[in-house]
């Protein structure tokens, strides 16, 4: 095997795995032999190894030569990059929020804590976020690098590539736009609800005072707390959704679908709460036991409360169903107007 052969097979090793690899090698060998012959003729002597070495040195290292045949020198190319950045931002935000919530939950469940213990939870939380974000980054890069290689350019068009209409600047603000305080309020209240129902359920009760002593009747039954983990999932999903809305500033196809998904999930939970055992611990018996009401009043109030809570759940389900129908309608009109 002469030097040119070895050089060509070395280039071949570094060529991208595309078809025509053998062809490139064959063409390169033929070119190098032509060049060598040319040089031999010019210098008036037969080609020798020194001449070959000079030629190959000039032609460049095998890696460099192979790189010139690589049509795709990017891991994530310019056409994918804006979309990649967008997904990266959303995922980073969601991962961070979810882990912050989990850390918050941990702090709430472990309290009261001593200083060092508290610092450790915070430290674990922060390092957890850093490593999760790095892992998410790696996974997203991997997915996009694969997309870059297997999705044909024609099938992937970013929004910017659609024809931009300057008239869109003059349009009135769309109903899709979100006022910034809405998601913030939603996030804050959902957090409050999460922490009260999960960590301080004793706060939810009817308080009475007799003399110096406060006492309270619990309002919620075991049936409610059995469903609480599922309700929590809905709430956490809502926090994530509002985090995304805060970032995007408007409703779009994916946030609408996400929101519809959460609502349907909540309707299903609502259905089980409605049809299962009562979630309200205020019954004629419990009111009688409290000693505040006489038998008749306890009977009437207790029955009213039991019926009232079911009516309330039914009403909330009804309103949520209307919300879902409205959201689906918007989704359909939005996607059909996008097509035209």
């Amino acid at each position, binding site marked *: 095997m002469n030097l040119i052969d070895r050089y060509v097979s070395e280039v071949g090793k570094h060529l991208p795995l595309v078809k025509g690899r053998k*062809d*490139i090698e064959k*063409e390169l060998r*033929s*070119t190098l*032999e*032509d060049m060598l012959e040319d040089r031999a003729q010019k210098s008036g002597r037969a080609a020798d190894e020194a001449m070959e070495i000079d030629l190959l040195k000039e032609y*460049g290292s095998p890696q460099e030569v192979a790189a010139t045949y690589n049509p795709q020198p990017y891991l994530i190319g310019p056409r994918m990059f804006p979309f990649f950045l967008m997904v990266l931002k959303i995922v980073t935000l969601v991962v961070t929020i979810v882990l912050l919530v989990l850390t918050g939950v941990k702090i709430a469940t472990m309290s009261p804590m001593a200083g060092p213990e508290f610092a450790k939870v915070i430290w674990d939380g922060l390092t957890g976020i850093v490593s999760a974000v790095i892992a998410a980054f790696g996974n997203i890069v991997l997915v996009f690098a694969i997309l870059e290689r297997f999705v044909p350019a024609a099938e992937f068009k970013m929004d910017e590539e659609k024809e931009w209409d300057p008239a869109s600047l003059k349009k009135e603000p769309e109903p899709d736009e979100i006022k910034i305080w809405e998601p913030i309020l939603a996030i804050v209240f959902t957090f409050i609800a999460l922490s009260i129902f999960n960590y301080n359920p004793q706060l939810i009760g009817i308080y009475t005072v007799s003399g110096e002593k406060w006492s309270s009747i619990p309002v919620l039954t075991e049936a409610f707390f059995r469903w609480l983990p599922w309700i929590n999932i809905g709430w956490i999903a809502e926090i994530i959704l509002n985090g995304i809305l805060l970032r995007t500033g408007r409703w779009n196809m994916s946030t609408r679908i996400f929101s519809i998904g959460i609502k349907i999930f909540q309707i299903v939970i609502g259905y089980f709460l409605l049809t299962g055992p009562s979630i309200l611990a205020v019954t004629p018996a419990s009111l009688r036991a409290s000693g505040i009401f006489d038998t008749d009043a306890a009977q009437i109030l207790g029955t009213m409360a039991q019926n009232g809570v079911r009516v309330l759940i039914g009403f909330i389900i009804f309103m949520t169903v209307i919300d879902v129908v409205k959201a689906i309608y918007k989704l359909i009109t939005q996607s059909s107007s996008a097509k035209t």
Partner: protein
Amino acid sequence: MTNTESLENVVLELRRGVIVLAALSQLGTEQYGYSLLKQLADQGLEVDQGTLYPLLRRLEAQGLLESVWKLEEARPRRYYVVSAEGKKLLPKLKKEWAGIVAVMNKMLA
């Protein structure tokens, strides 16, 4: 970035577009890579081999060139020639080039 570096980059950018037109214009009759390289150099356009050979393959993939292997002097050579599509495109590219040259000459005068 030093001045020479930026000068080199601009010159590289300028030449990059020209090489396609130069190669297409010379491949009315079939030639193999190295002979085209020499022909371009003889006419005053020095092109790096690392630029020209991959370019020829790209133009072939785009359908502007056709190629065929021929055995000559006991050595196989890949001959390139402008395809039917390339022939249609070439006059348009020439016109475009003439326009650019005219505009730039006026601007730089």
